[in-house]
């Protein structure tokens, strides 16, 4: 699991590389929590290097979305690979998350 953060156009872009499973999700959770606690309002998550996610990963993102919505922030997901998109879709999360094809599109959203 590799997580990189980069400030860009008033947002923090988080690039995750690896499997967001029971083990990986706690690392992602810590990274996102840290960004939210630092007061950032817009988080863009780049999933281009993520081939697999399970419900433990979904939990991390819905908690983050709820927290950001409460403070007027936003969480945008981009470049979801087919299996990751399928998991979000079956969970009904594609209806509540803003999902973009590219980071550039997410930064404009």
């Amino acid at each position: 699991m590799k997580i990189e953060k980069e400030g860009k156009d008033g947002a923090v872009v988080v690039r995750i590389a690896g499997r967001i499973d029971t083990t990986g999700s706690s690392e992602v959770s810590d990274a996102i929590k840290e960004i939210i606690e630092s007061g950032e309002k817009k988080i863009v998550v780049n999933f281009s290097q993520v081939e697999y996610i399970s419900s433990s990963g979904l939990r991390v993102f819905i908690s983050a979305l709820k927290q950001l919505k409460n403070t007027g922030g936003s969480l945008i997901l981009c470049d979801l690979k087919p299996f990751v998109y399928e998991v979000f879709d079956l969970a009904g999360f594609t209806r509540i998350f803003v999902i973009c094809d590219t980071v550039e599109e997410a930064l404009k959203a």
Partner: protein
Amino acid sequence: MKEVYEAELSGGEELVATVVTAVREALEAAFIESHTSQQIQLSCEEALTNTFLHGYRGSGWIAVRCLVSDEEVTLILSDKARAFDPTLVADPDTKGDLEDRPIGGLGVHLIREMMDSFTYRRQEDTNIITFVKRR
């Protein structure tokens, strides 16, 4: 039907990653298409996580068998935790607004959606969950 993976293990939640990795490697060696394999890995991860977190609430014994035929992949997970039928777990709300969405409870729903068959039986002191996925 050919057995591609078989293991009996004792331990805690850390076994989930061990088993999922072994199942992934076995399915790859058996030339199972990657998307089908990911769906089976997820089902395996969700079911075993529930076994350790809610069944054992800690450590215990599990057995895993993975069988492959020309038509389907079968994964059989056994444990000796208290009797629990995951196929009876109600589906969570997947259509409401963000505020109404639960943080958890999605694992069994994902298994149900991804597998072609998801069954449970209790045999003496053992819970046996069987997944079947068509290739």
